[in-house]
């Protein structure tokens, strides 16, 4: 490992070789040939490592190309009109209005009665009490009757929660499995934002789990969407919105949810 910036120091003092730029260009030009040669000739572990490296590079390349294409497409769309009708004073304003494209489509959908109660995950796997709770058998009296339970799933507890005295605490919600924030995806916009959870509205497994604030797949939580800048029909800023948990939080170590709109 170099201990100092001695190469920079040298170039500062003595300058670069006269053909430096040329050499750099040629080296870069050789790069592809070199990579291709390696890809064809390497064997064994080295080939594997090379493939992995190359794979990652290609992912990056594809992402970049896609970004570039999107940029170009956007430029083209600016001149053409959008698909939703807009008044003339908004026609040339690019895509800033599109962030609201969500609402009309969603509102139409919500107008249909049946869609009103539909959620992205209509069915969930049942979770038995044995899986949910671990019987706590520490201490003389607790062990004898074994009435104490530890919740083995992630939970949400309110900001002002304090644990009850040990003697009365029937359900322990472990600190390490508590979550305050959820990664909420907006289904129409396709953006994901980390938002604070306000409360657990409904755990489809059982009303008791709702009360305990257990976060399992399919749970409906209320999240604080104030930073998304949504507005109600009355013109007030929407503060809380419901979202459904889409992953098995106990396996993933994070809460992912999709906004119900």
């Amino acid at each position, binding site marked *: 490992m170099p201990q100092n910036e001695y190469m920079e120091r040298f170039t500062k003092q003595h300058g670069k070789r006269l053909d430096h730029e040329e050499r750099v260009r040629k080296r870069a030009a050789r790069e592809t040939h070199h990579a291709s040669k390696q890809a064809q000739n390497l064997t064994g572990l080295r080939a594997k490592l090379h493939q992995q490296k190359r794979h990652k590079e290609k992912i990056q390349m594809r992402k970049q190309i896609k970004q570039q294409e999107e940029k170009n497409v956007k430029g083209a769309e600016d001149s053409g*009109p959008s698909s*939703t*009708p*807009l*008044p*003339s*004073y*908004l*026609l*040339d304003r690019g895509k800033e209005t599109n962030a*609201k494209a969500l*609402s*009309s489509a969603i*509102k139409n959908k919500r107008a249909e009665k049946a869609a009103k109660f539909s959620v992205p995950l209509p069915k969930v796997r049942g979770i038995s009490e044995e899986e949910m709770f671990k019987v706590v058998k520490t201490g003389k009296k607790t062990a004898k009757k074994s009435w104490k339970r530890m919740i083995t799933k992630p939970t949400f507890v309110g900001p002002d929660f304090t644990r009850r005295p040990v003697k009365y605490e029937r359900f322990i919600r472990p600190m390490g499995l508590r979550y305050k924030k959820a990664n909420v995806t907006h289904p129409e916009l396709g953006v994901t934002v980390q938002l604070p959870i306000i409360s657990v509205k409904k755990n489809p497994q059982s009303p008791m789990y709702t009360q305990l604030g257990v976060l399992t797949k399919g749970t409906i939580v209320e999240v604080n969407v104030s930073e998304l800048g949504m*507005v*109600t*029909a*009355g*013109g*007030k*800023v929407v503060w809380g919105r419901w979202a459904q948990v889409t992953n098995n939080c106990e396996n993933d170590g994070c809460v992912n949810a999709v906004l119900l709109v």
Partner: protein
Amino acid sequence: MATVLPPPSKRQKRDDAARARDPVEQPTIPEGLQRIQFRDADTGAAQGPVVSVSLADLRSQNLSLLLNSLLGKTDPADRLPYRFYNPLGDGEFNQEQIIKAYVDGTTTTELQLNIPCRAEAVFKVKAVTRCSASVSGHGESILSAQFSPATSSRLATGSGDKTARIWDCDTGTPLHTLKGHTGWVLAVAWSPDDGVLATGSMDNTVRLWDPEKGTPLGGALKGHTKWITSICWEPYHLREPGRPRLASASKDYTVRIWDAVSGHTDMALTGHKGSVTTVKWGGAGNIYTASQDRTVKIWTSATGTLLHTLTAHAHWVNHLALSTDHVLRTAYHDHQGRKAVPDTVDAKRKKAKERYDAALAPAGGVERLVSASDDCTMYLWEPSNSNKPLQRMVGHQKQVNHVTFSPDGATIASAGFDNHVKLWNAKDGKFISTLRGHVGPVYQCAFSPDSRLLVSASKDTTLKAWDVRTGKLAENLPGHQDEVFAVDWAPDGQRVGSGGQDKAVRIWRN
């Protein structure tokens, strides 16, 4: 056990005793007479003779009565409501300030105070408070709305479903569906005589309709190569009898003047280097156009030659307003409705001209122009005198989308994407107040015909009615399901019509 208050402290006791000892002196209005002279706020002309009034009686209500009787309007039916301004400074008339000045000796009874006054509209519009009808019919967002100049019972809307519709606001029902366009209807405009409705569309054409029967008048007016952004009719008093004309502004950088009877292009005004956003036809025969090439251009309507180019803006010019917009739109229709409409064409023209001249008075006999721009500023122009702006109006934090003059020509309201509506003095372009309340960009605003109220439409799905004088929210009007694109206050003040992305037209009443 009841809680016993602690005994009062020594200081409290002392204060109480002092209060009991010396009685409080009521602020009294000193005896004295003040010589006052009423002057017109716009022209400065004296109104009535100099009179002496006791200081105690110097109140706005008393002054209004006094001025009316000085001007010989003794019959209560003839009386005009007046608005008085502070003779010693800016703002409203204030009795306390005059008394204060009298007490500290800045004014004396010998000096005469010039009290600026301005006659207000003789009729009073009540703030709209409720949604009287929510009529669905359009299949797509409503992009533009305008009331008929003659009556508030007819509203025309243009929509993204390629139709325009005329609504009967008395019953809240659709009256006619105007089918013919093959693109979104972006602009609707009633002719000032209420006889023709013009619609401009995304399909590059303008169409004319008979609003009574709902039938097309001729075919499409073709000529533009891109969509129509704005339409304006020739003022009634300027039009050649039997040959009404209209101007349409388009994205294709041109403005075309059409003969509404033959359907031919009269002239094409070319010269802009960007999309023309607004066209206004002034009452003196000038056509004002605002464009995204950062300029406002003025053309003569007779020959179509370019008179001036107003360059001051640093970004797109989004909207224009004339101080005479209201009278040009309504021509000979005044607040009295159909019964006051003259019979003959000559009488109509005369009345339209009279109303136009009356509307010019506050600005000193010339048309004022205000332009709103993406550079977050507005400029006030007096194009007939100078091609330099009178005043630059700064204060908006984001682009200004819409600007409008009050019908009496005394106030300018501007709606911006920074969620605020701002009021400005139309005389000198000074800032008056900010109307805060919307939580989304404000798209449009419209004054009530008596200039006392303003209604604004916003992306936050609400309309809000504001009291112009106090700058307070008069009424919050939620009800739309989605953003509101278009709003208009009927010229007779009865109704407000609005439409937006939720496809329903809403009629608001008091």
